[in-house]
């Protein structure tokens, strides 16, 4: 079991460019979560999926951010027209199911927008 895999580990983009972050959850886990971590805001919930269906995206900035889970083996978080304030560590986590949800986190993708 390789755990939750996030790629790339580091991404540098110029202001206005697009960034796509990838997450491969643990096989057999039905729930996938995205969080954003910054020094100022701490750990912020963005969105989550259950059985590939989007359940709650209340934490996603309404413009420029989108997330998908096209199959059970990966999810993507896309940020269009990146801005310096998007710089953060983006963490993906998966869990067997909701409810008694022990989260297994990936190592994160550090996004730096210049």
């Amino acid at each position, binding site marked *: 079991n390789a755990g939750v895999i996030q790629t790339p580990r580091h991404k540098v983009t110029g202001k206005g460019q697009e960034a796509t972050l990838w997450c491969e959850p643990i096989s057999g886990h039905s729930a996938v*979560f995205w969080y954003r971590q910054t020094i100022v805001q701490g750990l912020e*919930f963005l969105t989550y999926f259950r059985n590939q269906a989007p359940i709650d995206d209340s*934490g996603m900035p309404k413009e420029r951010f989108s997330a998908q889970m096209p199959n059970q083996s990966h999810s993507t978080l896309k940020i269009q027209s990146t801005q310096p304030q998007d710089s953060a560590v983006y963490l993906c986590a998966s869990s067997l199911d909701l409810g*008694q949800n022990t989260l297994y*986190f990936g*190592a994160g993708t550090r996004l730096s927008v210049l």
Partner: protein
Amino acid sequence: TQTVSQSDAHVTVFEGDSVELRCNYSYGGSIYLSWYIQHHGHGLQFLLKYYSGNPVVQGVNGFEAEFSKSDSSFHLRKASVHWSDSAVYFCAVSANSGTYQRFGTGTKLQVVP
């Protein structure tokens, strides 16, 4: 709305000392409470959780936490810390109905050799 607060941003103790990291929550229904640890440059790792039953729960590496409904607390404790316990510790709360976990702001624990 669920909220979780960790009042101490930094805690410094000597190796071998005991430590308690505080977590308070606000939520009216049945909830799950968890603690996670994050070493620098890594994702979060699960330590322990509480839902019901014995209010004292045991976790990995000698950590335990005690749930108190009257105090709305779920403090994490360890009797004798090791330098490798230096990390940031996050408390989290989620509703029983199954939703995402809300995290506290974290407590950075520094263990001095």
